[in-house]
């Protein structure tokens, strides 16, 4: 079988390498195109699972609490992410509304649930039911989660609104800021190694 060969192919230029175990902190780069081939991973499955659970809790907070409140002559208006999504729908920008719902709510949620599912079983040394489909779905979700862009967007909106309105920050914005930090940690995790971490037979 081809998969018993200790080979590695650079996904950016198709160069074939013999695979080698990496030591702590090492990063393997492609000699031809300089792309990262593999990183050494400090985080074990348990730590990754803990991270996903934390991210889920923070994600719930970020969506439940209002993000920011504006005040004008005694009147106060606040919004959550869903408030913004619904309002865009009503204001005849349904496409934008759907884009926001997908990239800021459904895709991030789906990513966390799938990852949590896979890691929950991987922790026990087992392959989750539907492992293959979950892994392919995680690959497809790839760049389509944009929570970190939304945080910067909120910052810009706050600065713009500050000129005309009284601005009060709500817990939602802090939860989003925390979520962005967690996402940054996630970004360095190569999900592909989960294929090798959990043995195939025990499905």
């Amino acid at each position, binding site marked *: 079988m*081809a998969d018993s060969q200790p080979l590695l192919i650079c996904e950016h230029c198709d160069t074939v390498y013999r695979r080698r175990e990496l030591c702590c902190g090492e990063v393997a780069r492609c000699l031809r195109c300089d792309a990262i081939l593999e990183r050494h991973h400090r985080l074990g499955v348990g730590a990754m699972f803990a991270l996903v659970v934390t991210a889920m809790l923070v994600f719930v907070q970020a969506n439940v609490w209002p993000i920011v409140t504006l005040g004008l002559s005694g009147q106060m208006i606040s919004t959550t992410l869903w408030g913004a999504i619904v309002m865009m729908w009503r204001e005849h920008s349904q496409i*934008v509304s759907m884009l926001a719902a997908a990239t800021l709510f459904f895709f991030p949620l789906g990513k966390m649930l799938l990852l949590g599912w896979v890691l929950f079983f991987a922790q026990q040394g087992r392959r989750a039911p539907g492992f293959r489909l979950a892994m392919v779905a995680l690959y497809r979700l790839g*760049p*389509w989660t944009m929570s970190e862009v939304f945080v910067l967007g909120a910052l810009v909106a706050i600065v*713009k609104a500050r000129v005309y309105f009284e601005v009060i920050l709500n817990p939602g914005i802090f939860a989003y800021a925390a979520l962005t930090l967690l996402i940054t940690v996630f970004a360095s995790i190569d999900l592909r190694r989960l294929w090798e971490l959990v043995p195939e037979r025990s499905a």
Partner: protein
Amino acid sequence: MSQDLPRADELGLIGCHVCGLVCRDTGAEGAHCPRCHSALHRRKQASYSRTLALLLAAFMLYIPANVLPIMRTASVGDIDDNTILSGVIELWVKGSPDLAVIVFTASIVVPMLKFLALGLLLWSSRHATPWARRQRAKLYRLVELIGYWSMLDVFVVALLTALVRFGVLSLVEPLPGVVFFGLTVILTMFASMSFDPRLIWDGRESDD
């Protein structure tokens, strides 16, 4: 230096694009990865024409996205329509210049860079030129990395629309420009995903 590094097709191998598994290239049509069951391809399918089509479509939407206003601010009879560029200028004058630079980068520099970079990558890979291969590979990875930050302005409009609801006193409404802009970003993301960076290294192998 990099010429003696073997490439997958020379060794009769295919790396699965989805899960990365090294598979033997049987040459059969419709082969599937034994691990993740995704279709195996040596290169992304119809990479050149798909990327070109998506890029052209994105560019056509990019024009109304910039010309049409993206947001209307109405306060006590005073109506102010903002385009992407005038929003940046307003932020520079009234808000904070540093944030204006960030928005300018995300909304104007990044989309332009994507059009230029992907156009250049398409053109040069079509001609199989050995020119600046490493730099082109890096350029592609940069485009992939920063692409989705252009959604920034779309989210700003969505938030302000939901927040500024003070009736006659002050009201923000989204305008069609923001829809065009959102679609431009999505299409350029699809365009950069359908480009295959392996094409940069295909063709004439000479000094690089």
